[in-house]
């Protein structure tokens, strides 16, 4: 019997991020329904990237949800108002929704600092209900690291990410899970589990070159699409995130100035 044909990357429907450079790297966007880990140390542009992803989605008519575990919604809003393309009407119309994890925990009565298997299921069900109720097509959780702190064991984290990814994918919801790592970290998440389960891994970083600090981004993994694995330099601007290739000549210690 002939082996089953592998799904051609171009066959998957795309969730166009609206960030031109990133869509180009991903050959048209994130395959719809993928759960992508956005990982990097502080100040590398993870939250800005995720916010822009949601705003573009909302502008394109896709309901978008930001669940924050780190910053209050009004503070986050201040970060997106400078965008030239942001329209407050998106929030008023319910296309772009901000929620705090703290509120979700309170409503579910999850007050413990450590979740067991049953509480993970309660949380997944609650997130599923939210996605259904709000008809969410784009979701950002910032950060998944803070949720994982409550899961303690690698088994629980694996179970949570697997169930979350599967729940979101079955609803056609494309999600970005923000993961915080320290600059010295050699893996992509605090527990080393998330990156193995996620469909994609997008790494942001700070690259020091001869005393200059450049913000970089690299798509390390993305199921369902051909993509560049090169490193790009990014800039956070009022027209959105801009990308250019990292110049490689800089890493060659040849003569000249």
């Amino acid at each position, binding site marked *: 019997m002939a082996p089953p044909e592998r799904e051609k990357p171009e066959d998957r429907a795309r969730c166009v991020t609206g960030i031109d450079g990133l869509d180009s790297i991903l050959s048209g966007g994130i395959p719809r329904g993928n759960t992508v880990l956005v990982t990097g140390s502080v100040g590398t542009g993870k939250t800005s990237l995720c916010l822009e992803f949601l705003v573009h989605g909302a502008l394109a008519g896709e309901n978008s949800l930001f669940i924050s575990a780190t910053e209050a919604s009004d503070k986050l809003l201040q970060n997106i108002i400078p965008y030239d393309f942001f329209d407050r009407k998106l929030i008023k119309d319910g296309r772009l929704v901000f929620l705090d994890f703290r509120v979700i925990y309170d409503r579910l009565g999850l007050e413990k600092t450590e979740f067991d298997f049953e509480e993970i299921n309660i949380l997944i069900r609650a997130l599923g209900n939210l996605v259904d109720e709000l008809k969410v097509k784009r979701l950002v959780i910032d950060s998944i690291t803070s949720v994982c702190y409550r899961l303690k064991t690698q088994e629980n984290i694996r179970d949570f990410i697997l169930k979350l990814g599967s729940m979101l994918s079955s609803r056609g919801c494309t999600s970005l899970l923000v993961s915080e790592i320290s600059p010295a970290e050699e893996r992509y998440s605090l527990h080393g589990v998330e990156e193995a389960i996620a469909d994609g891994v997008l790494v942001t970083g700070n690259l020091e070159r001869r005393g*200059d600090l450049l913000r970089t981004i690299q798509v390390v993994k993305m199921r369902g699409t051909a993509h560049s694995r090169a490193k790009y330099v990014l800039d956070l601007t009022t*027209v959105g995130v801009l990308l250019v290739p990292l110049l490689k000549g800089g890493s060659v210690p040849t003569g000249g100035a």
Partner: protein
Amino acid sequence: MTVAASIGRKLLGLPEAAAIALRMKADHYFDVIRALLDTFATKKSLDAIYVTSTIPSASIINALEVLEVPLDHIYFVDSISQIMMSSGQKHPHAIFVESPTMLENLMLKVEFLIRKTQDRHNVVILDSINSLAIHNNTKILSEFLHILVNNLRSKEAYTVIFSMEEYETEEIRNMLNLVSDETLQVEE
């Protein structure tokens, strides 16, 4: 014919979205800037993006104001002011890059200004290859020019690269030949 008139005539005859190496003596520097901005920003109705790594944008702006060149369609990417620790009033048409070694950031700021000024086509003026060569090695500078020029060409923008004859090296000439469609020599 004056230097400005002579260079202006040559620039008007250039094909669309050309990449031009402009070789000049340091003495002709301000005549060339005036002719260039008059040709592209006024006669050709383009938005000019002036990338300076030679002298601070504030000095160029002051000179343009003295020469009565309107600044409405001229924007600056300044990579030299911050490295010189120069303070003072920031012009609303000037944005800053920390150092001329941050070549990727120069490209990003050019891209930003192109997106901000979408009504008109652009000319990007690189002032100059010689000052960039002081801060960067030839390999990274060639790579930068190659990516920048091709990117601008795809956006139907002109690229003009200044080169001061007094500071030209063999390597700089080769680099310019590689990326430019034409080399214009500024003569009296």
